Structures are given as structure tokens and as C-alpha cells.
């Protein structure tokens, strides 16, 4: 009797282990992929800022933290930050997803892609002194059992990654930026 119960418990634990591992494998495959260019060493924290007039009306969270609003007499330094988001999606036809047993096993039925491009122009009057750009590509797959992150969530991740990348590029140019007319 006890031996029978032990076998049952062992089988149940093997079953749960199999299910758990399969779920982990499936979910790992569904995580969003992200790549940012250019490749730079990320900053651990923002330890310098340059002042100027900021020409940007969007969410301040996405603005590089290496720039800050400051008094700009005459033709002082100004920062113009812009970004764009390009959306895309690829789907397997629904009828294929219905009949293909692999999709019923959790294989992807489609993917969402998002490209975020950010650009920071540093201007003195109307003259462009320096320009920083960064691009972030995001991709996530979907399955019948897993929809994954929304475009809103991907967009936010992408914009923050682009911001961090521009900050890191600016840190590399720190000496140059400190020499700007009103730079710190």
C-alpha cells in the first residue's frame, strides 16, 4: 500500500517537473529580444550634465539625463531631441495555426517588431555642433498560449534603451562637451 503511494507520488512529481520545464522553455523562447546600436559601454549612473535650452515636448522620462534645462544667454547651447517608432507584425495565416500541431504545442504563430530611433542634436544658435543617434530593435513572438508584452510596453523599453545609449555616448565625449561655451 505504502509502496503504491510512493510510486504515485514519484509519477506525479515527474509529471509536474516535465510540465514546469516545458513551460520554462516555452516562456524563455517568448521573451522579447532587444538590440541597441551603436554598441557602447552602459553608464551605471548619470554623473554629469550639461546645461542648455531643451527643445522637446514629449515625456521627460525618455530624455537623456545628461542634459538639463539651463539659462542660455544669446546664441547659447540648445538640445533638440526627437524619436520615431516604426511598428511591424508578421503572422502565420490563422488556418495554418489551426491545423499545424506544432502551434498547438506552443510554437510561435507570429511576431511583433518595433524599431525606435532617437536623435539628440546639440546646437549653438542654428549651427549643429554635435549629433547623437541610437536605434533599438525589439522583437517578440506570440503563440496560442502566450501573447507576451504589448507594443506600449515594448515602446517604453525601447525609448529607455535609446536614452541610455545616448547618455553613454555623451559620457565618452565628456571632455568635448565640457568645453562647449555653456557646457556645465
Amino acid at each position: 500500500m505504502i509502496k503504491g503511494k510512493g510510486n504515485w507520488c514519484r509519477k506525479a512529481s515527474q509529471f509536474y517537473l516535465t510540465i514546469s520545464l516545458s513551460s520554462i522553455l516555452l516562456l524563455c523562447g517568448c521573451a522579447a529580444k532587444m538590440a541597441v546600436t551603436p554598441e557602447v559601454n552602459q553608464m551605471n549612473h548619470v554623473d554629469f550634465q550639461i546645461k542648455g535650452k531643451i527643445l522637446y515636448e514629449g515625456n521627460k522620462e525618455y530624455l537623456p539625463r545628461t542634459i538639463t534645462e539651463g539659462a542660455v544667454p544669446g546664441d547659447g547651447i540648445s538640445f533638440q531631441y526627437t524619436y520615431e517608432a516604426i511598428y511591424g507584425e508578421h503572422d502565420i495565416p490563422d488556418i495554418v495555426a489551426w491545423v499545424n500541431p506544432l502551434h498547438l504545442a506552443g510554437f510561435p504563430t507570429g511576431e511583433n517588431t518595433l524599431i525606435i530611433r532617437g536623435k539628440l542634436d546639440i546646437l549653438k544658435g542654428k549651427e549643429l555642433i554635435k549629433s547623437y543617434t541610437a536605434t533599438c530593435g525589439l522583437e517578440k513572438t506570440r503563440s496560442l498560449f502566450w501573447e507576451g508584452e504589448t507594443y506600449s510596453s515594448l515602446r517604453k523599453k525601447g525609448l529607455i534603451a535609446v536614452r541610455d545609449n545616448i547618455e553613454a555616448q555623451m559620457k565618452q565625449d565628456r571632455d568635448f562637451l565640457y568645453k562647449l561655451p555653456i557646457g556645465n
Partner: protein
Amino acid sequence: MKKSTLILIILTVFLLGMFLLSCAPLGPAFQKTDAIPENMGLVYIYRPSKGFGSGVAYEVKANGVLITKLHNGGYYPYFTLPGETEFSAKTETKSAVTIDVKAGETYYVKGSIRLGLIVGRPRLLVVSPEVAESEIIKCKLIQERK
């Protein structure tokens, strides 16, 4: 009454019910709005007519507030204040896109329905004016609001 007749009646009533539910309150064909109120942006939410999932309509919310029910082949013009606005729709899964709306600008959010486990899943996508203008022209105004 024979069992097969009863099944047939139930099936007919069910299909009729589904058909009536899918009848969307759609109005006139697409007309571009030229007058955007001052200090507001315009977002067209539209869903091209498709055979698959045509009976499923879903609610679209802007920053969590219900704005319309998106029917197959319908469009809805939504005026909003500038700033980040999240458009979302949900059935068995959620789809959401965020637009940083600027005053006087026009944006397009395309809705569709994809295969789901129990019910069709909504899909929202920000599309360029070039793509949207060729698709929305075939859509009709959703007259039902909320």
C-alpha cells in the same frame, strides 16, 4: 419532437443570435475630418473588414477610459489632448499601443482580430498615414459610442 429536430432548432437560434450580435451599428462611409479642435490631436481607430472573426467586436479604451466598440469594417475618430495616450483592447488577451499625441496632428491605429484559444484576440497597431488612408477609405463610421 425528434432529438435531431431539437438540435437543429437550437443551432439555428444560436446562429441567428450570433448573426444579430455581429450586426454592427455602422454609419456613413469614411470621410476625413479636416477640423481638429484647437490644442487637440486626432486619432482614427479603424478595423478593415475581414471574414475571419467578423462577429467579434471589442472595446477600445484610451488611458483606461472606454471610447468605442470596434466593429469589423468600422472606424472611429477620437479627439484627444496632447500627450502620451495608450489605446488598449482586451478579450482573452490584451493589446495596447501608445501614441505621443501632438496638437493638430492626425494618427492612425489599426485594429484586427487574430486566432485565440476561446475567442478572437484583438490586435492594435500604429500605422503610417500612407497605409491607413488606403484601408480606412473602405470603413464606415461607428455610430455607437460607449
